Protein backbone atom coordinates (compact mmCIF):
# COMPACT_ATOMS: atom_id res chain seq x y z
CA UNK A 1 0.00 0.00 0.00
CA UNK A 2 1.29 3.45 -0.86
CA UNK A 3 1.90 6.28 1.55
CA UNK A 4 -1.32 7.82 2.93
CA UNK A 5 -2.55 11.12 1.53
CA UNK A 6 -4.65 13.64 3.45
CA UNK A 7 -7.37 16.20 2.73
CA UNK A 8 -7.94 19.61 4.33
CA UNK A 9 -11.25 18.22 5.61
CA UNK A 10 -9.33 15.65 7.67
CA UNK A 11 -9.90 12.51 5.61
CA UNK A 12 -7.10 10.11 4.69
CA UNK A 13 -6.78 7.92 1.61
CA UNK A 14 -4.52 4.91 1.07
CA UNK A 15 -4.09 3.60 -2.49
CA UNK A 16 -3.42 0.03 -3.59
CA UNK A 17 -3.58 -0.50 -7.35
CA UNK A 18 -6.82 1.19 -8.49
CA UNK A 19 -8.49 0.82 -5.07
CA UNK A 20 -8.50 3.58 -2.44
CA UNK A 21 -9.33 3.08 1.25
CA UNK A 22 -10.76 6.18 2.92
CA UNK A 23 -11.18 7.17 6.56
CA UNK A 24 -10.97 10.13 8.93
CA UNK A 25 -7.78 11.26 10.65
CA UNK A 26 -6.82 10.98 14.31
CA UNK A 27 -6.95 14.76 14.49
CA UNK A 28 -10.55 14.66 13.20
CA UNK A 29 -11.56 12.22 15.94
CA UNK A 30 -9.90 14.39 18.58
CA UNK A 31 -11.90 17.39 17.38
CA UNK A 32 -15.15 15.41 17.23
CA UNK A 33 -14.86 13.74 20.64
CA UNK A 34 -16.72 10.51 21.44
CA UNK A 35 -18.14 9.08 18.22
CA UNK A 36 -21.58 7.55 18.72
CA UNK A 37 -22.97 7.15 15.19
CA UNK A 38 -21.52 6.34 11.78
CA UNK A 39 -23.20 6.07 8.37
CA UNK A 40 -21.17 4.70 5.44
CA UNK A 41 -22.10 4.83 1.73
CA UNK A 42 -23.72 1.78 0.09
CA UNK A 43 -21.75 -0.40 -2.29
CA UNK A 44 -22.15 0.75 -5.89
CA UNK A 45 -22.65 4.40 -4.98
CA UNK A 46 -20.62 6.97 -6.92
CA UNK A 47 -18.81 9.54 -4.84
CA UNK A 48 -17.33 12.79 -6.12
CA UNK A 49 -14.12 14.43 -4.99
CA UNK A 50 -15.01 16.65 -1.98
CA UNK A 51 -18.60 15.36 -2.15
CA UNK A 52 -20.46 14.22 0.97
CA UNK A 53 -19.99 10.45 1.32
CA UNK A 54 -20.49 9.41 4.96
CA UNK A 55 -21.73 10.79 8.28
CA UNK A 56 -20.11 10.75 11.68
CA UNK A 57 -21.77 11.96 14.87
CA UNK A 58 -20.30 12.67 18.26
CA UNK A 59 -22.28 13.32 21.44
CA UNK A 60 -22.04 17.00 20.41
CA UNK A 61 -22.98 17.15 16.73
CA UNK A 62 -23.28 15.50 13.31
CA UNK A 63 -20.55 16.01 10.70
CA UNK A 64 -20.30 15.03 7.06
CA UNK A 65 -17.38 12.95 5.83
CA UNK A 66 -16.24 13.90 2.32
CA UNK A 67 -14.56 11.67 -0.19
CA UNK A 68 -11.07 13.04 -0.96
CA UNK A 69 -11.27 11.59 -4.50
CA UNK A 70 -13.98 10.38 -6.92
CA UNK A 71 -14.91 6.78 -7.56
CA UNK A 72 -17.39 3.97 -7.02
CA UNK A 73 -17.85 2.45 -3.57
CA UNK A 74 -16.85 -1.23 -3.61
CA UNK A 75 -16.81 -1.93 0.12
CA UNK A 76 -17.92 -0.26 3.37
CA UNK A 77 -16.86 -0.94 6.92
CA UNK A 78 -19.89 -2.31 8.77
CA UNK A 79 -17.90 -2.86 11.96
CA UNK A 80 -17.65 0.91 12.62
CA UNK A 81 -21.43 1.22 12.07
CA UNK A 82 -21.99 -1.46 14.73
CA UNK A 83 -19.37 0.00 17.08
CA UNK A 84 -18.92 3.73 16.35
CA UNK A 85 -16.55 4.18 19.31
CA UNK A 86 -13.98 2.04 17.47
CA UNK A 87 -13.37 5.05 15.20
CA UNK A 88 -11.91 6.87 18.23
CA UNK A 89 -9.55 4.02 19.02
CA UNK A 90 -8.10 3.24 15.58
CA UNK A 91 -9.16 5.92 13.06
CA UNK A 92 -6.24 5.48 10.67
CA UNK A 93 -6.18 1.69 10.78
CA UNK A 94 -8.98 -0.84 11.35
CA UNK A 95 -11.65 1.89 11.46
CA UNK A 96 -11.52 2.90 7.79
CA UNK A 97 -14.89 4.05 6.36
CA UNK A 98 -15.15 2.83 2.75
CA UNK A 99 -13.17 1.68 -0.29
CA UNK A 100 -13.63 2.97 -3.83
CA UNK A 101 -12.49 2.07 -7.30
CA UNK A 102 -10.54 5.18 -8.27
CA UNK A 103 -11.99 7.14 -11.18
CA UNK A 104 -9.20 9.62 -11.79
CA UNK A 105 -5.69 9.13 -10.35
CA UNK A 106 -4.74 12.75 -10.93
CA UNK A 107 -7.14 13.84 -8.16
CA UNK A 108 -4.64 12.38 -5.70
CA UNK A 109 -2.24 15.17 -6.64
CA UNK A 110 -4.48 17.70 -4.85
CA UNK A 111 -3.94 15.95 -1.50
CA UNK A 112 -1.26 16.42 1.15
CA UNK A 113 1.40 14.00 2.34
CA UNK A 114 1.78 13.25 6.07
CA UNK A 115 4.36 16.01 6.70
CA UNK A 116 2.25 18.66 4.96
CA UNK A 117 -0.91 17.50 6.72
CA UNK A 118 0.72 17.64 10.16
CA UNK A 119 1.89 21.16 9.34
CA UNK A 120 -1.62 22.09 8.15
CA UNK A 121 -3.13 20.79 11.43
CA UNK A 122 -0.56 22.68 13.51
CA UNK A 123 -1.46 25.89 11.65
CA UNK A 124 -5.22 25.23 11.79
CA UNK A 125 -5.82 23.55 15.15
CA UNK A 126 -9.61 23.94 15.02
Amino acid at each position, binding site marked *: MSEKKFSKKHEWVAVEGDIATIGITKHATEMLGDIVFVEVPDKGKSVEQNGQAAVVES*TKAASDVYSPISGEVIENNKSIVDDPSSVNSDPEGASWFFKIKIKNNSELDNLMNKTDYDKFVAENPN
Partner: protein
Amino acid sequence: MEAQKTNLYSYHKNLGAKFVSFAGYEMPIQYSEGIVKEHISTRTFAGFFDVSHMGQFYISGKNIEEALEKIIPTDLKGLKENQSKYSFLLNDKGGVIDDLIITRREKGFCIILNAACKENDIKQISKQLNDDHKFHLCTQTSLIALQGPKSAEILENYIKGVSSLKFMQGGTFNFENEKIYVTRSGYTGEDGFEISVLNTQAELLLKKLADSKVKPIGLGARDTLRLEAGLCLYGHELNEEINPIEANLKWAIGKKRREEGGFNGWEIIKKNLEKGTLKIRVGILPEGKIIAREGTKIFSTNDEEIGVVTSGTFGPSINAPVAMGYVNSSWSEVGTNIKLEVRGKKYEAKVAVLPFYKKSYAK
Protein backbone atom coordinates in the same frame (compact mmCIF):
# COMPACT_ATOMS: atom_id res chain seq x y z
CA MET B 1 -19.36 41.79 22.94
CA GLU B 2 -16.39 40.12 24.57
CA ALA B 3 -17.13 36.70 26.07
CA GLN B 4 -17.41 36.66 29.84
CA LYS B 5 -15.50 34.17 31.94
CA THR B 6 -16.34 32.68 35.28
CA ASN B 7 -14.00 33.14 38.22
CA LEU B 8 -12.74 29.56 37.60
CA TYR B 9 -11.73 29.97 33.94
CA SER B 10 -7.98 29.47 34.45
CA TYR B 11 -8.60 26.55 36.77
CA HIS B 12 -10.58 24.83 33.98
CA LYS B 13 -7.89 25.70 31.46
CA ASN B 14 -5.23 24.05 33.62
CA LEU B 15 -7.40 20.93 33.81
CA GLY B 16 -7.32 20.68 30.01
CA ALA B 17 -10.82 21.99 29.32
CA LYS B 18 -12.01 22.67 25.78
CA PHE B 19 -14.13 25.79 25.79
CA VAL B 20 -17.30 26.76 23.98
CA SER B 21 -19.19 30.00 23.89
CA PHE B 22 -22.43 29.55 25.82
CA ALA B 23 -24.86 32.33 26.76
CA GLY B 24 -22.08 34.90 26.38
CA TYR B 25 -19.63 32.93 28.56
CA GLU B 26 -16.54 30.91 27.68
CA MET B 27 -17.49 27.63 29.36
CA PRO B 28 -15.82 24.20 29.45
CA ILE B 29 -17.63 21.85 27.04
CA GLN B 30 -15.44 18.93 28.07
CA TYR B 31 -12.13 18.08 29.73
CA SER B 32 -9.45 15.66 28.55
CA GLU B 33 -11.41 12.43 29.15
CA GLY B 34 -14.32 13.42 26.94
CA ILE B 35 -18.09 13.59 27.27
CA VAL B 36 -18.91 9.88 27.53
CA LYS B 37 -16.38 9.21 30.34
CA GLU B 38 -17.46 12.38 32.17
CA HIS B 39 -21.08 11.28 31.90
CA ILE B 40 -20.34 7.78 33.24
CA SER B 41 -18.15 9.17 36.08
CA THR B 42 -21.08 11.31 37.22
CA ARG B 43 -23.54 8.40 37.12
CA THR B 44 -21.24 5.90 38.85
CA PHE B 45 -19.21 8.09 41.25
CA ALA B 46 -19.43 11.89 41.23
CA GLY B 47 -18.57 14.90 39.11
CA PHE B 48 -18.34 18.64 39.70
CA PHE B 49 -19.61 21.37 37.38
CA ASP B 50 -18.89 25.09 37.37
CA VAL B 51 -22.30 26.66 36.80
CA SER B 52 -21.31 30.15 37.92
CA HIS B 53 -22.62 31.59 34.66
CA MET B 54 -26.11 31.10 36.05
CA GLY B 55 -27.68 34.00 37.90
CA GLN B 56 -27.84 33.90 41.70
CA PHE B 57 -30.57 36.45 42.26
CA TYR B 58 -31.61 37.59 45.73
CA ILE B 59 -34.89 39.36 46.38
CA SER B 60 -36.65 40.49 49.54
CA GLY B 61 -39.04 43.07 50.99
CA LYS B 62 -42.54 43.53 52.29
CA ASN B 63 -45.11 41.21 50.66
CA ILE B 64 -42.51 39.99 48.20
CA GLU B 65 -44.40 36.66 47.91
CA GLU B 66 -47.42 38.44 46.47
CA ALA B 67 -45.35 40.35 43.92
CA LEU B 68 -43.49 37.24 42.75
CA GLU B 69 -46.53 34.98 42.68
CA LYS B 70 -47.86 37.11 39.80
CA ILE B 71 -45.11 35.83 37.50
CA ILE B 72 -43.96 32.67 39.31
CA PRO B 73 -46.74 30.06 39.45
CA THR B 74 -45.66 28.28 42.61
CA ASP B 75 -46.95 28.54 46.18
CA LEU B 76 -44.36 30.95 47.57
CA LYS B 77 -46.44 31.86 50.63
CA GLY B 78 -46.46 28.19 51.57
CA LEU B 79 -42.75 27.69 50.86
CA LYS B 80 -40.84 27.10 54.10
CA GLU B 81 -37.40 28.52 54.85
CA ASN B 82 -34.65 26.57 53.05
CA GLN B 83 -37.12 24.75 50.80
CA SER B 84 -36.58 24.91 47.03
CA LYS B 85 -39.04 24.61 44.16
CA TYR B 86 -38.59 24.26 40.42
CA SER B 87 -40.70 26.91 38.69
CA PHE B 88 -40.89 29.50 35.90
CA LEU B 89 -41.25 33.13 35.04
CA LEU B 90 -44.36 33.42 32.88
CA ASN B 91 -45.41 36.00 30.31
CA ASP B 92 -49.00 37.23 29.76
CA LYS B 93 -49.79 34.21 27.57
CA GLY B 94 -48.41 31.75 30.11
CA GLY B 95 -45.28 31.26 27.97
CA VAL B 96 -42.05 30.51 29.79
CA ILE B 97 -39.67 33.50 30.08
CA ASP B 98 -37.24 31.30 32.03
CA ASP B 99 -37.23 28.20 34.21
CA LEU B 100 -35.66 28.50 37.63
CA ILE B 101 -35.10 27.13 41.12
CA ILE B 102 -36.44 29.34 43.91
CA THR B 103 -35.43 28.86 47.54
CA ARG B 104 -36.83 30.66 50.57
CA ARG B 105 -33.94 32.09 52.54
CA GLU B 106 -33.79 33.76 55.94
CA LYS B 107 -34.73 37.05 54.27
CA GLY B 108 -36.68 36.71 51.05
CA PHE B 109 -35.77 34.34 48.25
CA CYS B 110 -32.82 33.23 46.16
CA ILE B 111 -33.63 32.45 42.52
CA ILE B 112 -31.22 30.57 40.24
CA LEU B 113 -31.69 31.87 36.68
CA ASN B 114 -30.39 30.67 33.32
CA ALA B 115 -27.31 32.58 32.15
CA ALA B 116 -28.79 33.49 28.77
CA CYS B 117 -32.00 34.80 30.34
CA LYS B 118 -30.87 36.50 33.52
CA GLU B 119 -30.79 40.09 32.28
CA ASN B 120 -34.26 39.93 30.78
CA ASP B 121 -35.53 37.99 33.81
CA ILE B 122 -34.50 40.81 36.12
CA LYS B 123 -36.26 43.31 33.85
CA GLN B 124 -39.44 41.21 33.95
CA ILE B 125 -39.28 40.67 37.72
CA SER B 126 -38.66 44.39 38.32
CA LYS B 127 -42.00 45.21 36.70
CA GLN B 128 -43.77 43.48 39.60
CA LEU B 129 -41.86 45.31 42.33
CA ASN B 130 -42.26 48.52 44.31
CA ASP B 131 -40.00 50.66 46.52
CA ASP B 132 -40.35 48.22 49.43
CA HIS B 133 -38.53 45.53 47.48
CA LYS B 134 -34.81 45.01 47.18
CA PHE B 135 -32.91 42.74 44.83
CA HIS B 136 -29.42 42.05 43.55
CA LEU B 137 -27.59 39.62 41.30
CA CYS B 138 -24.80 38.19 43.43
CA THR B 139 -21.34 38.32 41.86
CA GLN B 140 -19.36 37.52 45.03
CA THR B 141 -20.13 33.81 44.86
CA SER B 142 -19.49 31.02 42.38
CA LEU B 143 -22.02 28.23 41.88
CA ILE B 144 -20.69 24.67 41.88
CA ALA B 145 -22.79 21.57 41.26
CA LEU B 146 -21.61 18.27 42.71
CA GLN B 147 -23.58 15.39 41.22
CA GLY B 148 -23.50 11.61 41.46
CA PRO B 149 -24.17 8.78 43.91
CA LYS B 150 -21.04 9.50 46.02
CA SER B 151 -21.76 13.25 46.32
CA ALA B 152 -23.14 13.22 49.87
CA GLU B 153 -20.42 11.00 51.29
CA ILE B 154 -17.69 13.13 49.69
CA LEU B 155 -19.09 16.59 50.43
CA GLU B 156 -19.73 15.66 54.07
CA ASN B 157 -15.92 15.37 54.50
CA TYR B 158 -15.49 19.06 53.70
CA ILE B 159 -18.82 20.61 54.69
CA LYS B 160 -20.18 18.95 57.84
CA GLY B 161 -23.92 18.35 57.92
CA VAL B 162 -24.76 18.54 54.21
CA SER B 163 -25.59 14.83 53.97
CA SER B 164 -28.63 15.37 56.21
CA LEU B 165 -30.28 17.67 53.62
CA LYS B 166 -33.28 16.26 51.79
CA PHE B 167 -33.85 16.68 48.05
CA MET B 168 -34.84 20.30 47.25
CA GLN B 169 -33.78 21.52 50.69
CA GLY B 170 -30.95 23.95 51.48
CA GLY B 171 -29.01 25.23 54.43
CA THR B 172 -26.13 27.41 55.61
CA PHE B 173 -23.02 25.45 56.54
CA ASN B 174 -19.39 26.09 57.32
CA PHE B 175 -16.51 25.72 54.87
CA GLU B 176 -12.99 26.70 55.94
CA ASN B 177 -14.32 29.23 58.47
CA GLU B 178 -16.72 30.88 56.05
CA LYS B 179 -20.47 30.49 55.65
CA ILE B 180 -21.55 28.53 52.60
CA TYR B 181 -25.04 27.88 51.26
CA VAL B 182 -25.76 24.40 49.91
CA THR B 183 -28.93 22.94 48.40
CA ARG B 184 -29.57 19.30 47.59
CA SER B 185 -30.54 19.58 43.95
CA GLY B 186 -29.16 19.33 40.45
CA TYR B 187 -29.69 18.78 36.77
CA THR B 188 -28.44 15.26 36.07
CA GLY B 189 -31.00 12.84 37.51
CA GLU B 190 -28.51 11.97 40.25
CA ASP B 191 -28.36 12.81 43.91
CA GLY B 192 -26.23 15.89 44.42
CA PHE B 193 -25.74 19.43 45.61
CA GLU B 194 -25.50 22.98 44.34
CA ILE B 195 -23.03 25.00 46.35
CA SER B 196 -22.92 28.77 46.49
CA VAL B 197 -19.31 29.39 47.50
CA LEU B 198 -17.36 32.66 47.84
CA ASN B 199 -15.31 33.33 44.69
CA THR B 200 -12.22 33.45 46.91
CA GLN B 201 -12.87 29.86 48.09
CA ALA B 202 -14.25 28.30 44.89
CA GLU B 203 -10.96 26.91 43.62
CA LEU B 204 -10.10 25.51 47.06
CA LEU B 205 -13.43 23.65 47.14
CA LEU B 206 -12.85 22.17 43.69
CA LYS B 207 -9.32 21.10 44.64
CA LYS B 208 -10.69 19.28 47.68
CA LEU B 209 -13.30 17.55 45.55
CA ALA B 210 -10.59 16.60 43.05
CA ASP B 211 -8.54 15.15 45.96
CA SER B 212 -11.53 12.86 46.57
CA LYS B 213 -11.27 11.70 42.93
CA VAL B 214 -14.27 13.75 41.75
CA LYS B 215 -13.90 14.53 38.04
CA PRO B 216 -14.59 17.92 36.42
CA ILE B 217 -17.58 17.73 34.06
CA GLY B 218 -18.26 20.06 31.14
CA LEU B 219 -21.43 21.33 29.48
CA GLY B 220 -21.34 18.44 26.98
CA ALA B 221 -21.95 15.79 29.63
CA ARG B 222 -24.28 18.13 31.50
CA ASP B 223 -26.48 18.03 28.39
CA THR B 224 -26.40 14.22 27.94
CA LEU B 225 -27.07 13.75 31.68
CA ARG B 226 -30.06 16.11 31.79
CA LEU B 227 -31.50 14.68 28.60
CA GLU B 228 -31.38 11.12 29.95
CA ALA B 229 -33.04 12.48 33.10
CA GLY B 230 -35.82 14.01 30.93
CA LEU B 231 -35.10 17.56 32.15
CA CYS B 232 -35.88 20.61 30.02
CA LEU B 233 -33.25 23.01 28.70
CA TYR B 234 -34.40 26.58 28.22
CA GLY B 235 -34.26 27.64 24.56
CA HIS B 236 -34.87 24.04 23.49
CA GLU B 237 -37.84 22.47 25.32
CA LEU B 238 -38.94 25.81 26.78
CA ASN B 239 -39.45 29.28 25.34
CA GLU B 240 -41.91 32.17 25.45
CA GLU B 241 -44.28 30.39 23.03
CA ILE B 242 -44.57 27.27 25.20
CA ASN B 243 -46.51 27.08 28.47
CA PRO B 244 -45.78 24.68 31.35
CA ILE B 245 -48.79 22.48 30.54
CA GLU B 246 -47.57 21.93 26.98
CA ALA B 247 -44.12 21.22 28.43
CA ASN B 248 -45.69 18.45 30.55
CA LEU B 249 -44.61 20.28 33.70
CA LYS B 250 -47.97 20.90 35.37
CA TRP B 251 -46.60 19.20 38.52
CA ALA B 252 -44.28 22.19 38.93
CA ILE B 253 -47.23 24.58 39.31
CA GLY B 254 -48.54 22.82 42.42
CA LYS B 255 -52.12 22.02 43.38
CA LYS B 256 -52.94 25.27 45.19
CA ARG B 257 -51.82 27.55 42.36
CA ARG B 258 -53.42 25.29 39.74
CA GLU B 259 -56.76 25.71 41.51
CA GLU B 260 -56.50 29.37 42.55
CA GLY B 261 -54.58 30.85 39.64
CA GLY B 262 -53.72 34.53 39.96
CA PHE B 263 -50.59 34.42 37.82
CA ASN B 264 -49.67 35.49 34.28
CA GLY B 265 -51.34 33.41 31.61
CA TRP B 266 -53.72 31.75 34.09
CA GLU B 267 -56.69 31.90 31.66
CA ILE B 268 -54.81 29.93 29.00
CA ILE B 269 -53.21 27.56 31.47
CA LYS B 270 -56.57 26.88 33.13
CA LYS B 271 -58.11 26.08 29.75
CA ASN B 272 -55.16 23.79 28.92
CA LEU B 273 -55.49 22.04 32.29
CA GLU B 274 -59.17 21.35 31.66
CA LYS B 275 -59.17 20.56 27.95
CA GLY B 276 -55.62 19.47 27.27
CA THR B 277 -53.14 21.04 24.87
CA LEU B 278 -52.73 20.76 21.10
CA LYS B 279 -49.10 19.72 21.45
CA ILE B 280 -47.14 18.23 24.31
CA ARG B 281 -43.53 17.44 25.23
CA VAL B 282 -42.63 13.75 25.01
CA GLY B 283 -39.62 11.48 25.25
CA ILE B 284 -38.54 9.79 22.01
CA LEU B 285 -36.49 6.63 21.53
CA PRO B 286 -35.26 6.24 17.94
CA GLU B 287 -34.80 2.68 16.74
CA GLY B 288 -31.25 1.57 16.08
CA LYS B 289 -28.47 4.11 16.45
CA ILE B 290 -29.92 7.06 14.53
CA ILE B 291 -29.57 10.38 16.37
CA ALA B 292 -32.38 12.90 15.90
CA ARG B 293 -30.98 16.36 16.62
CA GLU B 294 -32.90 19.53 17.46
CA GLY B 295 -35.13 20.52 14.53
CA THR B 296 -35.69 16.96 13.26
CA LYS B 297 -39.24 16.69 11.89
CA ILE B 298 -41.53 14.09 13.46
CA PHE B 299 -44.09 12.21 11.36
CA SER B 300 -46.96 9.86 12.16
CA THR B 301 -47.00 6.34 10.75
CA ASN B 302 -49.22 7.68 7.93
CA ASP B 303 -46.62 10.35 7.09
CA GLU B 304 -48.43 13.35 8.47
CA GLU B 305 -46.05 15.88 10.07
CA ILE B 306 -46.89 15.87 13.79
CA GLY B 307 -44.04 17.62 15.56
CA VAL B 308 -40.41 18.49 16.00
CA VAL B 309 -37.44 17.33 18.09
CA THR B 310 -36.15 19.93 20.59
CA SER B 311 -33.09 18.02 21.91
CA GLY B 312 -31.46 14.80 20.81
CA THR B 313 -28.20 13.04 21.40
CA PHE B 314 -26.67 9.71 22.36
CA GLY B 315 -27.40 8.63 25.95
CA PRO B 316 -24.22 7.02 27.31
CA SER B 317 -25.93 5.37 30.32
CA ILE B 318 -28.71 3.76 28.33
CA ASN B 319 -26.29 3.19 25.44
CA ALA B 320 -28.79 4.37 22.85
CA PRO B 321 -29.92 7.57 21.20
CA VAL B 322 -32.49 9.64 23.10
CA ALA B 323 -34.55 12.70 22.22
CA MET B 324 -37.30 14.99 23.44
CA GLY B 325 -39.70 16.95 21.34
CA TYR B 326 -43.22 18.25 20.85
CA VAL B 327 -45.90 16.19 19.09
CA ASN B 328 -49.61 16.72 18.46
CA SER B 329 -51.25 15.45 21.64
CA SER B 330 -53.15 12.69 19.82
CA TRP B 331 -49.77 11.06 19.08
CA SER B 332 -48.29 11.52 22.54
CA GLU B 333 -49.18 8.25 24.25
CA VAL B 334 -46.19 6.22 25.43
CA GLY B 335 -45.43 3.44 22.95
CA THR B 336 -46.89 5.27 19.91
CA ASN B 337 -44.93 4.52 16.73
CA ILE B 338 -43.63 7.64 15.03
CA LYS B 339 -41.05 8.49 12.35
CA LEU B 340 -38.10 10.86 12.43
CA GLU B 341 -36.76 12.52 9.28
CA VAL B 342 -32.96 12.57 9.44
CA ARG B 343 -30.92 13.65 6.37
CA GLY B 344 -33.95 13.17 4.13
CA LYS B 345 -34.77 9.62 5.26
CA LYS B 346 -37.47 8.54 7.67
CA TYR B 347 -36.54 6.32 10.60
CA GLU B 348 -38.75 4.42 13.05
CA ALA B 349 -39.05 5.68 16.63
CA LYS B 350 -41.36 5.39 19.63
CA VAL B 351 -42.82 7.83 22.11
CA ALA B 352 -41.11 6.86 25.38
CA VAL B 353 -41.47 7.29 29.13
CA LEU B 354 -39.50 10.14 30.72
CA PRO B 355 -37.02 10.01 32.33
CA PHE B 356 -35.00 7.64 30.15
CA TYR B 357 -32.71 7.14 33.12
CA LYS B 358 -34.21 6.41 36.54
CA LYS B 359 -33.44 9.02 39.19
CA SER B 360 -31.99 8.32 42.60
CA TYR B 361 -32.73 11.44 44.66
CA ALA B 362 -32.37 11.53 48.47
CA LYS B 363 -35.85 11.43 49.96
